[in-house]
């Protein structure tokens, strides 16, 4: 007998009285969702898309107008709630879960539970390193040390990616310095010099920040003076009036730290866990900008680093 898995079998309607699956035969009654429902769902989804964008823009507006910084969890919760509602609508109607066997919904729920476990327990670890012993804290060297980017093994670079050596700087800093050097060279070349002198460097820097502020401040991306703009070209280039978000230095020691962030270290951590990686030394009750340098040990107690404490 030859058989193929696609053999056509005529279903025998009165076979199988003990069918464990409990559905009879001949009922091809799959639910057909009405065109009107589909359209309504689409409109609701579009509405929620507009809503989530509007709320997010609204948050920006509130921050700029009332000079506050909203915590990030607000943004996350609003955005994720709306996204969840949208996802549920897609699952229930477009994907037909509402009219389908319960099993398929259960599968999806189990899947979501697994995802939640994954995110939850992983963040418990990453969010609480060093809660007891600083030994286990992730060392907050922003952007990394750059160590290893040029690591070689038996003289051969370890990656197919660009083989850069950042001499221990974070890659962002390395690229910035590269650009500054290049701009200084351009300035020098304008004046027929082969080596940039101090004036060239300054001019290059001004050029750099002009581009930066044009791109950011004017386009509303980041209405602040850049932390690395040490000579305050922000004001001298005439961008200061864009800064609608001046933070008063009073009463907000945590925000003081923001403006006092060193090139390698910033303290503004309004994430899910505020002050996640702060160690004691970062809380300077006197508003006197004190940022630890990169080499300062992070497990020092406040008493050791701050005599006023």
């Amino acid at each position, binding site marked *: 007998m030859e058989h193929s*898995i696609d053999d056509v079998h005529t279903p025998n309607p009165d076979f199988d009285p003990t069918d464990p699956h409990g559905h009879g035969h001949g009922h091809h009654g*799959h639910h057909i969702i009405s065109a009107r429902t589909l359209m309504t769902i689409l409109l609701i989804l579009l509405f929620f898309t507009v809503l989530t964008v509007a709320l997010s823009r609204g948050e920006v507006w509130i921050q700029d107008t009332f000079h506050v910084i909203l915590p990030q969890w607000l943004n996350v919760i609003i955005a994720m709630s709306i996204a969840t509602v949208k996802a549920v609508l897609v699952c229930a109607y477009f*994907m037909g879960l509402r009219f389908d066997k319960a099993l398929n919904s259960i*599968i999806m729920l189990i899947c979501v539970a697994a*995802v939640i476990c994954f995110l939850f327990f*992983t963040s418990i670890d990453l969010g609480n390193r060093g809660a007891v012993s600083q030994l286990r804290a992730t060392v907050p060297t922003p952007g990394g040390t750059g160590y290893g980017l040029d690591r070689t093994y038996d003289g051969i670079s370890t990656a197919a990616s660009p083989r850069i050596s950042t001499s221990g700087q974070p890659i962002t800093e390395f690229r910035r310095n590269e650009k500054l050097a290049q701009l200084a060279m351009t300035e020098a070349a304008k004046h027929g010099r082969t080596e940039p002198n101090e004036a060239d460097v300054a001019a290059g820097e001004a050029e750099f920040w002009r*581009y930066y502020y044009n791109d*950011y401040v004017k386009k509303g991306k*980041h209405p602040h003076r850049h932390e690395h703009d040490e000579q305050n070209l922000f004001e001298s280039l005439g961008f200061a009036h864009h800064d609608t978000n001046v933070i008063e230095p009073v009463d907000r020691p945590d925000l003081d730290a923001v403006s006092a962030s060193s090139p390698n270290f910033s303290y503004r951590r309004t994430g899910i866990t505020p002050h996640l*990686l702060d160690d004691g030394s970062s809380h300077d009750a006197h508003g006197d900008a004190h940022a630890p340098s990169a080499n300062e040990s992070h497990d020092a107690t406040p008493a050791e680093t701050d005599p006023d404490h």
Partner: protein
Amino acid sequence: MATIDANKPDLPAAGAKSHPLYWKNRGFAHHFRNADEQFDACKLGMWLFLTTEVLLFAGIFCAYAIFRMLYPEAWTAGSHHLDWRFGGLNTIVLLISSWTVASGVRSAQLGNNAALIRNLLITLVCAALFVFIKLYFEYIPKLSMGKAPGTFFSYPYAHDPHEPLWWSVYYIGTGIHALHVFIGAGLLTWVLVRAIKYEAYGPTEYTMVETSALYWHLVDLVWIFLFPLLYLIH
């Protein structure tokens, strides 16, 4: 011998309706009791497959969540480089495609092959539009400015030292999503070809339409979460 495909076109070739792939000529595999059971099994299989896709993306979302928690400024700064208008437009494009594909299933259930073809075509156009916007307005300009992942990062005006990491997550997340757009579009194209050529789908035979549609909705679902997470941070 158990053959892979029983639908040998040994029927007389007198137009689409006599083709074994024409929906009225389709049977069901011999190890199922009836066509209904086969349909349910296929759908269950697809849902299980979708859970694997969700968990695949869970890895990316997990990396996103961890680094956003650790480096909130980098995420804010990075997100400012993205234009919410393109992201929003793409969201709308995908939502519409999701709607047309759901309508496509409905057309198949009603036996309206012309509507099925129309809906699938619109869906595919949306898919192409999505990829086009992504590439032309987002990936290409950004990459040419050096806003690239990891060590490829060469943008000098970064605001936060962790921006390269943000771009890594951005490109991996949207890139793998885009890959799924391609796979989904491929599936739908296959369905479309069979619908055009053989009128392969109708009220009693639309398993492929349904399962490919489910896959396409997943692409939409993932984007529903990616969009606010990537574009709407401030």
